[in-house]
């Protein structure tokens, strides 16, 4: 198979202990990696070893354990900086997840620079995490929200940009790197050129792309980027904000407390330097160690190989799903213009019924609006079923999905 030429998912599966378990007496077909990824043993081992041998709070201890744990935490920052090709490790801020990273940019950077009538541009494709924070900024500042629309296949339309540019000062363009619901990838390069011509910053939600393809912040030329550890083979509880150093430097802290300060008197405080200025309180340092291990694993497999595999498995899935009667793909019909995410519907069976019957086959898919209610409404739908793929997704998983869908039709009597 062509797929096996770039990466062998069946061999990789052995690295993920959860994929060996059964559900309802059948082996697991996990097709919900866009929600969260499963974890390789190497990542679990590194976190366990850290807790078992080096655990101590970071940036404080003069004793050996504290030094080791600080070194491990900061080494994780270097690994993230290298992963994203950041110009400096000072540009890497650890957060709780991508959502917190986006809130940090919205609240601490954009909101103080926004006034009444200023424009915030985002899209109907966005996950609620890259929508609600901007609604709040607009409400607090009197700025205006403007949305780029999609066509019926979910492809982003840029024709409104000229009109928007005439409406006022554009402060920010917030866009997803890849729709978590449809898998479509907006034309980020074009948006970046337009935004920078307006003097606006670009905030990229890369939660769906950092896990599965090379993401280079300097090549993308965006200004802020967010992703989550748990979708990237890492643990929950850690995310990353990357921001241009000059922009982070002029941004006031988001949260305040310990760790992010240089000196404190009862009345006033001076802030720590980047990136620690944005890391109030004890950070998720054990999780950072886990994320580091996850990044090592991804680098060993190769992000280009993972990207190629996702394209191949998505093309395979689109071809096989076409065999299921009454099944309709939501989003572009071809694999070329999308990542490893496929949303679909059956005209005569509700998505929740599909997901529940698939669960009896140990096939894990998501049914609902996938935290993208405006997009689902724009497409005239109430919900979709979503199957999403990753480096451990084999053709057999897709075959199991198709068999399950045929059983759905039998059970529902359609």
């Amino acid at each position, binding site marked *: 198979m062509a797929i096996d030429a770039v990466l062998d998912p069946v061999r990789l599966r052995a690295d993920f202990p959860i994929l060996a378990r059964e559900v309802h007496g059948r082996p697991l077909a996990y097709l919900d990696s866009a929600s969260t990824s499963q974890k390789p043993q190497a990542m679990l081992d590194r976190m366990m070893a850290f807790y078992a041998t080096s655990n101590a709070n970071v940036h404080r201890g003069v004793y050996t354990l504290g030094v080791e744990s600080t070194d491990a935490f900061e080494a994780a920052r270097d690994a993230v900086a290298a992963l994203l090709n950041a110009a400096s490790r000072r540009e890497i801020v650890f957060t709780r997840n991508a959502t917190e990273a986006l809130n940090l940019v919205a609240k601490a950077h954009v909101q103080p620079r926004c006034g009444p009538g200023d424009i915030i541009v985002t899209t109907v494709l966005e996950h609620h995490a890259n929508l609600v924070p901007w609604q709040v900024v607009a409400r607090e500042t009197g700025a205006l929200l403007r949305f780029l629309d999609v066509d019926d296949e979910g492809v982003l339309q840029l024709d409104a940009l000229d009109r928007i540019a005439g409406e006022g000062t554009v402060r920010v363009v917030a866009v997803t790197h890849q729709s978590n619901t449809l898998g479509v990838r907006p034309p980020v390069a074009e948006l970046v050129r337009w935004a920078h011509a307006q003097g606006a910053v670009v905030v990229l939600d890369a939660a769906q792309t950092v896990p599965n393809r090379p993401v280079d912040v300097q090549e993308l030329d965006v200004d802020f980027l967010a992703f989550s550890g748990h979708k990237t083979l890492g643990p929950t509880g850690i995310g990353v904000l990357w921001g241009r150093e000059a922009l982070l430097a002029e941004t006031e802290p988001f949260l305040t407390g310990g760790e992010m300060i240089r000196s404190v008197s009862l009345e006033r405080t001076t802030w720590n330097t980047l990136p620690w200025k944005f890391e109030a309180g004890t950070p998720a340092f054990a999780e950072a160690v886990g994320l580091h291990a996850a990044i090592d694993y991804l680098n060993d497999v190769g992000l280009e190989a993972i990207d190629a595999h996702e394209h191949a498995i998505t093309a395979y899935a689109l071809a096989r799903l076409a065999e299921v009667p009454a099944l309709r793909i939501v989003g572009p019909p071809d694999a070329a213009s999308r990542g490893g995410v496929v949303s679909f519907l059956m005209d005569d069976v509700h*998505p*929740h*019924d599909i997901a*529940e019957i698939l669960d009896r086959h140990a096939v894990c898919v998501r049914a609902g609006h996938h935290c993208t209610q405006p997009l689902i409404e724009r497409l005239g739908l*109430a*919900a979709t079923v979503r199957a999403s793929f990753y480096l451990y997704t084999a053709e057999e998983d897709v075959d199991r999905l198709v068999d399950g869908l045929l059983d759905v039709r039998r059970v529902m009597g359609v």
Partner: protein
Amino acid sequence: MDDELYRENLMDHYRHPRHHGAFDVPDAAADGHNPLCGDQVAVQVRLEGGRIGEMRFTGNGCAVSQAATSMLTDLVQGLTVEEAAALPSQAILDELGIPLSPMRVKCAVLGLGTLKVALHRSIGTPLPPEWGDDADELVWS
């Protein structure tokens, strides 16, 4: 009944819903909506001497939401409005008889919740205290 028979019963109610439709002039009515999965029901009631003469409904959504509402129309027939307003969620879950995840329990009790809102609005029966008391339509969140 075993699991498979319960499922057949559920599918029968889904495909052939009982008391499906609307009254020209209902004594009580309300709409219910589950934004998470898009289930919708519109519930109407005709009363006879303080009792549920007939409950009717229309709607669309997953099999669990529509079948459970269909079963409910049989279940509440002849109950006093107070009995209907106090009917526990477990009553409808027992009718369904199949194990449901917490997410799908919301689908199952959408019709019952909407009935309670309808009775509350027109007759003033109490709503479950955890809902507050200003519900105009039911929206699970």
